[in-house]
């Protein structure tokens, strides 16, 4: 159905449908559902950052939750110090971006293998968790903001109208902000994947050596992809910190950094819609299970994840898509690739 629409047409349709939905939902849903959805939107931005760097650039990064957390902390510290959210949002994106650039330089210019990149990003996350947890002493201050160790930073000022700190977002406004942020990030990533840069990332995922033999500096492009993904994750962290006016080191915890990986893997690698779907299904499941406690959430997620790696490694969306395409086109080639490359 959507195949007949051009790319801008598809995106316009998506924007129209999402806008109507986002505006209508607070009218029909209870406030706790709205809050829950806001959280899921923030998580979806995190999932998109991993979907981009892993699914398209082929870099398995364990560190997306860490950049998400750094973004949250940077937002919190800046907002507390300046009292206005606008520079805080910028800081929430910029600080993880710079951190990723520095960290990524060492990792990618050393040409570490995929496995080692996975390991070292995991280690980075673990060490951040431990370090942030140990900042309870009052000498760990950023300006007026106390890092607070495992207790985190409470009472973070919410997003406000630029320059007017007294006009700040309530739950409904925050829902809109989170929803439209997710939409914007999705559109931005979709667009970037159609540019030369996006094509190069996919080429690198498919065959890194060939890209080098063609003259592409793969170290640089990997670093760029990593940095872009960190910026997106950091932005997700800004939205997340706003959700509860709070950030603490649990975002660096193993159990938390695990989640985006599961969402992306199960939704489908190499797509952007799949990871969002995965986030909606699984984070809702986690939130519901978290309440009733009969079944441990790690046990369930671990089992589901291992099952997918062994038996459905492509994830939900690509599996469905392949099934549909297999039925539709028995002989001819799919039109997907050819149209995708032309635009």
């Amino acid at each position: 159905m959507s195949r007949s629409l051009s790319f801008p047409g598809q995106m316009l349709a998506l924007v129209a449908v999402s806008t109507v939905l986002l505006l209508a939902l607070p009218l029909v849903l209870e406030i706790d559902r709205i809050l829950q959805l806001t959280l899921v939107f923030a998580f979806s931005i995190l999932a998109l950052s991993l979907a981009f760097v892993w699914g398209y650039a082929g870099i398995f990064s364990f560190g997306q939750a860490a950049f998400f957390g750094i973004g949250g902390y940077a937002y919190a510290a800046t907002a507390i110090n300046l009292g206005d959210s606008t520079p805080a949002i910028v800081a929430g994106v910029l600080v993880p971006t710079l951190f990723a650039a520095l960290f990524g330089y060492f990792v990618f210019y050393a040409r570490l293998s995929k496995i080692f990149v996975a390991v070292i990003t995991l280690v980075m996350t673990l060490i951040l968790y431990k370090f942030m947890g140990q900042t309870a002493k009052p000498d760990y201050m950023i300006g007026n903001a106390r890092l607070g160790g495992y207790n985190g930073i409470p009472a973070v000022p919410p997003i406000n109208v630029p320059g007017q700190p007294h006009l700040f977002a309530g739950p409904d406004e925050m829902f809109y902000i989170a929803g439209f942020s997710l939409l914007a990030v999705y559109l931005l990533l979709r667009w970037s994947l159609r540019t030369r840069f996006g094509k190069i990332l996919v080429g690198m995922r498919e065959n890194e050596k060939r890209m080098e033999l063609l003259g592409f500096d793969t170290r640089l492009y990997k670093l760029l992809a990593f940095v872009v993904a960190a910026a997106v994750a950091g932005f997700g962290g800004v939205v997340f910190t706003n959700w509860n006016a709070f950030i603490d080191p649990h975002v660096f915890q193993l159990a938390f950094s695990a989640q985006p990986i599961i969402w992306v893997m199960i939704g489908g690698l190499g797509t952007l819609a799949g990871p969002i779907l995965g986030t909606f299904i699984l984070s809702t499941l986690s939130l519901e299970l978290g309440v009733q406690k009969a079944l441990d959430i790690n046990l369930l997620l671990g089992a589901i994840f291992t099952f997918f790696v062994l038996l459905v490694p492509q994830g939900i969306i690509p599996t469905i898509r392949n099934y549909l395409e297999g039925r539709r086109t028995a002989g001819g080639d799919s039109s997907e690739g050819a149209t995708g490359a032309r635009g």
Partner: protein
Amino acid sequence: MKARPEPVADSASPPLLRTESLSKHFGGVRAVESVTFSLGEGELRCLIGPNGAGKSTFFRCLTKIYRPNAGKIYFRGRDVTSIATHEMARLGVGIKTQVPSVFDGLTVQENLMLAASAGQRGREVGRTVEEVVERLSLQAVLGARLDRLSHGQRQWIELAIVVTSKPSLILLDEPTAGMTHAEVEHTAELIRELNKSAALIVVEHDMQFIRSIATHVTVFHEGRIFLEESAEKVLHDERVGEIYLGKGAFAK
């Protein structure tokens, strides 16, 4: 075609490619040993030698996949011994590897677009791809994903990728392996045509094929250059037959 003029050695300008005592060792194995090799602008050279003679290793040194243990590589007079793979490619060295190295999950068109966008920008990218599609008659497979093509077709697409990136030196490692007879003839034709705008080094085993494309042949044996002569002389040299296929099996 046989009356191709010999490449003129111009003492004023440096050769396109030159290696000096190039060596690559793996532990105790001397895969490439002290190879001094020279290729002029616009030249077409065939590289032959039995399996394990060091031809592919030599190619990997030239594309900087391997770092040589000793020796120097010069490209247009510039010392390129210690630059990276992508920098070598940007200088204009393209390679078709022995096992097709292509973008398996992408379509033929996407493969070519990527290759073109390596060194070209804007409109030029699309134009180059169209040219190559026309030249290599790829219209029918344009939308097909590479992992759904036959081995011979993949070889052919890899050639197309190399052509699309417009190199000035093309290295071909066994371009006809796994191709049908018709495809081999097609490849020979293409190589002759490519040679109008680029220099080539072709590793091959098919003597018929070598005879149809090259005037000069370099013979590798145990990592060293064994012989460098005109194609006719090399193909009738008894010693080459001995090292290559065992006694008597060669000269036919």
